[in-house]
């Protein structure tokens, strides 16, 4: 292993952190969902932002507990489903998997590294969109478009937002 990879993976074996405050645990997902429901009506250019996903990734990375990660992903996803036109469960399953894998990843990488956060943000956005597309196409038999270029671009944008956003959430 190189020094760079050691730096990225250097948190292995450190004690787990449970520093997220309870109010933040409630308010941040609510605010993220509220933002996603409310903001496109006013700020249409922010429609690409998937804040519930970023909240799920953040909590999963911070808690470093897979069960905790999948449960919070499930909760946020089901809440998001409640506002969608699709049957309840699609976002729930997608975000459950995101929470699980993000928590699993956090046990192997340094989740406070900016580069890791950017990469994780981009990867899970792509994973989220792709999985959602697969589930909707297969389980609901709804033909929805999937643009690779657009997904990559929005993934980069979401990752770019994730880095300062995670830094901000760290201070709560």
């Amino acid at each position, binding site marked *: 292993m190189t020094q760079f990879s050691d730096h990225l993976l250097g948190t292995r074996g450190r004690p787990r952190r449970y520093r997220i405050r309870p109010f933040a645990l409630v308010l941040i997902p609510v605010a993220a969902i*509220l933002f996603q*429901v*409310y903001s496109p009506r*006013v700020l249409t250019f922010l429609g690409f932002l998937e804040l519930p996903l970023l909240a799920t990734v953040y909590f999963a990375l911070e808690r470093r507990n*897979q*069960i905790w990660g*999948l*449960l919070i992903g*499930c909760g946020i996803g*089901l*809440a998001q*489903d*409640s*506002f969608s036109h699709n*049957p*309840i*469960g*699609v976002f*729930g*399953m997608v975000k*459950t*998997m995101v929470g*699980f894998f993000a928590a699993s990843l956090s046990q192997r990488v340094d989740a406070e590294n900016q580069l890791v956060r950017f990469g994780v943000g981009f990867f899970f956005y792509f994973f989220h969109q792709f999985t959602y597309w697969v589930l909707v196409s297969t*389980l*609901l038999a709804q033909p929805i478009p999937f643009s690779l270029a657009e997904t990559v671009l929005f993934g980069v944008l979401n990752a770019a937002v994730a880095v300062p956003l995670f830094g901000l959430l760290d201070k709560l």
Partner: protein
Amino acid sequence: MEFLLNRYRTITVLVLVLSAQLFLLAYQVKSRQDIPVARAWATGSFVPMARILESFRLSTIGTLNNLADLGRTQQENQRLKAELNALKLENQFLRAELATADRGKALALFQQRSPNRTLAARIVGTSTGAGAMVVLIDRGSNEGVRKGMAVITPEGIVGKVTSAYPAGSQVMLITDSSFAAGVISSKNRVHGTLRGQGHSKCSIEYIQNEEKLETGEWFFTSGDDRVFPKGLPVGQVVVAREGKLFFKEVFIVPAGLQKGLEEVLVILEGVHQPIPETFDPTQQLYLLPPPPAEPRTKLEADRVIRGVVSTDADLVLERYKRIGTVTGHAYGTGGTPNFNAPVDDAPVSGDPPGAGASAGAGPAAENAEAGRPPR
């Protein structure tokens, strides 16, 4: 089994959670039923928050709009203030021009009806002597002005020419302390000598204490001085009291200087006139309205020739009658005549378009056009 569950606890939980959601999804798809409770809960919890957010957004936008409006209003206010100042200046200039035009018109009118042969002149400057009430006019000996000629305005006498040069003349005002002229009162026919005092009022000297003179009485030129022809207004008595010795102390306000001096008349040939018994300088001169404009169309001309008083409604009625005659249409029998049919009401040749547009509008409109108040 227990070992396996502990060993793969997280995977087990993941599979259970995913399975539950998959089952939920399958149930909804299969039964074509939604879970309204979840959506109602979500909507019910979201709407109040969204309402708060919306009111906050709207109030923020309203505040920002108000601030922007305030800025725009301030700019607009500054622009309007600048415009107002410019318009005030323009208004002031136009008023001055109008006043000048009015004075010129009054002067010309007075010049026409005065029996004296006069020459209009404009005050172009004042003398530089300290305390001297002397002005310069733009008419001189080239125009026939001579030393000693009287200078007047329609309101009264102004002074006399003390020096005449080819291009201009000096005029001593009646307020100059060295000015003197013979005057006579209108009511009691009291003779006296007008003397300038170096300020806005003049005195009348050499009136015996025994003679009767009232405040408000008018003085006119007597013609004794051989400068001013008899019968020109001089001024109104404001002070008349008995003096310490033999003569009264009488002060008048010179009428010719009251409206400011810009244009004056130099009397080239004076004619003596009688002193009026009563004199009211504020009395307005009656002027006839100008003659009406020429008729605009042959139809109007025809009616003018026939001496029929025509209003616009009469003309329209006449035109419709002619259209009915030309097109053979009988009104009241149904159908619509061709109102565009050519009838003989074309404009009279030689008249410019719009000529006579104010015909029939009456003297009030004519007076308004001429800038006069209606009488």
